């Protein structure tokens, strides 16, 4: 059956959903530490440069592809030629990410409940290991991956129930409404935490560590690569989301300005999160009388070990703890919803099934697979899959997207003309240059550097059997793309291409 494609109710609804997708856990726990370790305030220069030369151009490209071809990533790339497989590649990457990202949101949800009684006790690092039921990484597959950890499974079920509730209510009634609650709430939470942070003793030391520029680092190529990586991984580009979200825009919609607004809001949030996180880290260092570098961390370590330690010592630590973990839940949920929507919409488009049926399948299968990461080996599996899918799944998908559009199909000029007719302001030929030259060069360099590093030193010292899982997934998402392209679709929009191929 064919359903009319849903549309966003308002422009702000679309932008909030796109911002909700872009703002994720990385804005809170990745950006601040990245900036701190890459030259402090000086990092802002390459970061803004990357935002203008790669982040915004790629976002404009994805918004325009979704809007012009009005389909999920596979349908969009199918309409561009024989590239349906490429859309499925991006969609498969989204599926993989959803399976482990949901588990991190589940941890944050559990920690929100732990924050009032401060269940983690005086040693949050040890508590995290016990909570996750961590097994020995060298025997990660033993005993059914270390067995299901029910304390993780319970919040995980709740996470999937919320995602299902939102997605099954559609674009307007579900995704848009949810983001109109999550996003303003998230901004209010981060502002409260930033204000609380800067009023703590020692906050100035933390902010000095984050913002004092070390200009010598600006000539270091790795800092520029990190800045491009931070922008690239933060904007939800190259894994089917923004194409899908833009496909729900009404025909007369701005493209260029929407991309600028989304990108500025995403990076602006990161900066606020940096102020909140580093002022609080400064407080911790001050309390213990140790330098900032002994406290500063990024990623899971920051959220689930350093922050609980800080909360133990902070006045009103219980309340701030709840706010911090709720903000992780909101940031994570709004991103997770967009990730699941990306592959749910692809299933709906390809197999011509109603949205609700596609959501049932998408959420059901992803929820089942996510249980793998709720086991005693879940953290090691998650860390490995995240590393491989980011560095070789998303990064190479982004690289090929720029190459296909810019070099193979040579579509940038047509897309630019299309955008300029619709948008509040026009973009010039600079956009083509950034997309055709700068983006592929930077992403290509980043990919090669990552590969060299990968083969010179095993990631995190994990056993080769675990790393093999990462490589299987990296190759698997591409293979899945070709298999799904080979399957015939009864959707008339896919069928147009198939008919052309049959005649040829």
């Amino acid at each position, binding site marked *: 059956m064919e359903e009319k494609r849903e549309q966003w109710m*308002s*422009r*702000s609804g679309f*932008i909030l959903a796109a911002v909700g997708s872009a703002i994720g856990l990385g804005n809170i726990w990745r950006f601040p530490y990245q900036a701190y370790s890459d030259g*402090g*305030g*000086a990092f*802002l220069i390459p970061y*803004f440069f990357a935002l203008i030369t790669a982040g915004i151009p790629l976002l404009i490209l994805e918004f325009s592809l979704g809007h012009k071809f009005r389909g999920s990533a596979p349908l969009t790339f199918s309409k561009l030629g024989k590239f349906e497989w490429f859309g499925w590649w991006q969609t498969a990457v989204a599926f993989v990410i959803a399976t482990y990202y949901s588990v991190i949101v589940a941890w944050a949800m559990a920690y929100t409940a732990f924050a009032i009684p401060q269940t983690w006790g005086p040693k949050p690092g040890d508590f995290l290991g016990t909570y996750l039921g961590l097994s020995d990484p060298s025997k990660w597959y033993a005993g059914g991956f270390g067995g299901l950890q029910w304390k993780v499974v319970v919040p995980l079920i709740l996470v999937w129930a919320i995602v299902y509730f939102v997605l099954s209510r559609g674009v307007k009634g579900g995704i848009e409404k949810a983001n109109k609650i999550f996003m303003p709430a998230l901004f209010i939470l981060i502002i409260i935490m930033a204000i609380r942070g800067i009023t703590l003793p020692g906050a*100035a030391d933390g*902010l*000095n560590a*984050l*913002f*004092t*520029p070390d200009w010598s680092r600006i000539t270091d190529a790795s800092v520029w690569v990190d800045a491009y990586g931070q922008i690239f991984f933060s904007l939800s580009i190259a894994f089917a989301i923004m194409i899908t979200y833009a496909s729900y825009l*009404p025909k*007369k*919609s*701005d493209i260029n*300005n929407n991309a*600028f*607004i989304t990108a*500025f*809001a995403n*990076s*602006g949030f990161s*900066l606020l999160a940096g*102020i909140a996180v580093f002022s609080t880290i400064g407080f911790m260092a001050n309390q213990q009388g140790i330098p900032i570098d002994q406290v500063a961390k990024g990623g899971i370590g920051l959220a689930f070990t350093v922050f609980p330690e800080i909360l133990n010592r902070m006045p009103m630590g219980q309340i701030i703890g709840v706010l911090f973990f709720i903000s992780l839940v909101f940031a994570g949920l709004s991103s997770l919803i967009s990730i699941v929507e990306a592959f749910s919409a692809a299933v709906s488009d390809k197999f011509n099934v109603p949205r609700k049926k596609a959501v049932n399948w998408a959420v059901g299968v992803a929820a089942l697979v996510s249980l793998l990461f709720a086991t005693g080996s879940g953290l090691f599996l998650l860390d490995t899959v995240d590393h491989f899918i980011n560095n070789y799944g998303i990064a190479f998908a982004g690289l090929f997207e720029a190459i296909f559009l810019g070099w193979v199909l040579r579509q940038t000029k047509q897309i630019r003309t299309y955008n300029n007719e619709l948008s*509040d*302001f026009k973009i010039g030929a600079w956009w083509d240059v950034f997309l055709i030259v700068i983006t592929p060069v930077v992403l290509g360099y980043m990919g090669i550097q990552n590969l060299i590093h990968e083969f010179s030193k095993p990631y995190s010292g994990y056993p080769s059997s675990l790393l093999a899982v990462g490589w299987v997934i990296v190759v698997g998402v591409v293979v899945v793309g070709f298999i799904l392209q080979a399957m015939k679709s009864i959707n008339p929009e896919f069928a147009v291409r198939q008919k052309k191929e049959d005649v040829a």
Partner: protein
Amino acid sequence: MNGSAIAMMLFGLVFLWGGFGLCVNIANKKSTQKFTD
């Protein structure tokens, strides 16, 4: 906080939130589909 840290923090905030405000303002002035619709 030292002067250069304050300067960089303000530079970041003004660049990003100023850019955001400017684009929202353009949307509200120029567009047929306003941001606040």
